[in-house]
């Protein structure tokens, strides 16, 4: 037998629990997330910032064309780590949820409700036959009626709210740094500088402004805004 007795092929069928209560395919999906580029989300009173690293692997890739932080609606930003294709599909799904909420109720979608619906889909892909789980975690940040919001979803379909968090290869190192430096009364600019700082320090490459993708959702304006290259450059100088 190729398998050790402990495994016994429990990783073959997605919907079969191992005797110690694991779903191996779902756990493997978590591993895919851990190999992704690092992404950081920070929530402060003034708003929410999502920042991601875009480390170049091949010199001929036009890194500017890679999008790691995207808009779901004018008040919500999203970033992902893990399988890029899976991330894209979930982001598209989220955009459709957001626009149909506006069409149905005439109001922007609450961020936790959106997060829950995405997580419901992810959960379904850990229970149904003939499918594989989504190999991505999402950071969802924005402003709604209740103020600034930041959520993280995982491949199992769980989600939690955070003040500051990270996904991807640098997750644990970055979260350690965030625990030390994060304060709830930080300005949004300081939070952005902190996000860039922890990403830069946790990367194995020398990251320049082009290697970051950063979006803010300001609590006052409630508007998603991507930072320009020059803005990232000047923020990097403040680290």
């Amino acid at each position: 037998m190729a398998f050790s007795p402990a495994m016994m092929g429990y990783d073959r069928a997605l919907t079969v629990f191992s005797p110690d209560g694991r779903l191996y395919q779902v756990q493997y999906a978590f591993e895919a997330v851990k190999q992704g580029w690092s992404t950081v989300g920070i929530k402060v009173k003034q708003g929410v910032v999502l920042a991601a690293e875009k480390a170049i692997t091949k010199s001929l890739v036009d890194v500017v064309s890679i999008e790691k932080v995207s808009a779901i609606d004018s008040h919500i930003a999203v970033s992902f780590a893990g399988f890029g294709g899976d991330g894209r599909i979930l982001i598209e799904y989220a955009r459709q949820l957001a626009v149909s909420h506006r069409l149905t109720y005439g109001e922007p979608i609450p961020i936790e409700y959106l997060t829950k619906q995405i997580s419901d889909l992810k959960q379904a892909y850990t229970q149904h036959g003939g499918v594989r789980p989504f190999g991505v975690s999402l950071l969802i940040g924005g402003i709604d009626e209740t103020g600034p919001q930041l959520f993280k979803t995982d491949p199992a379909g769980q989600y939690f709210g955070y003040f500051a968090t990270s996904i991807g290869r640098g997750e644990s190192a970055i979260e350690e740094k965030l625990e030390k430096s994060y304060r709830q009364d930080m300005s949004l600019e300081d939070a952005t500088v902190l996000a860039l700082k922890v990403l830069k320090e946790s990367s194995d490459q020398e990251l320049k402004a082009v290697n970051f993708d950063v979006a803010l959702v300001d609590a006052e304006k409630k508007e998603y805004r991507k930072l320009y290259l020059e803005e990232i450059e000047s923020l990097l100088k403040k680290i």
Partner: protein
Amino acid sequence: MAFSSMEEKALHGTTTVGLVARDAVVLAADRRATAGTFIAHKRTKKIIKVGDKMALTTAGLVADAQVLADWLNAQIRYLTITRRQPVTVREAAHLLSLILYRYKSFPFYVQLILGGYDSSPKLFSLDLFGSVLEEKYAATGSGSPIAMGVLEEGYREDMVPEDARKLAVRAVQMALRRDSATGDGVDSIIIDKQGVKEFSDPILP
């Protein structure tokens, strides 16, 4: 015939006009909503903003127009975010016409003017069956024959936006004098590179 009576209904109870000026589009509409001979509402907003730099004037059934405008707004929002590029006025007009055409056998009772600014000012007139006509100036509603007369006489290419707005308002005011289903003042807007500016004028010049 069924269709001609529908068209009559869609034409009922409004005057709206739109025209292309120098680097701007101007729209104007009256404020009266009627239910038969009854004046149902006297501050009706018949110009509905869609996207950032577009607006629709609505003539016909209010419910149909509102649903279409909401639907168009949702589509524009979704497309703008997912394509990361703004929706042009022509694209918006085509989207609308597809919906109107799809419901040709059970139509939305509307006649719409869609105006906006993308790289230049654009104006489209749409009927309830889904035709899309690009125009320099257009009028819809029961007072449109009267308003059109004013536009025919006063319209020039390359008008200063404020002059164009005055002409549009005057066209609606003339319709308001001779059409009992048009009344209660005139709303107008100018859409240019900067965005949308709104105005309102009284019943008489």
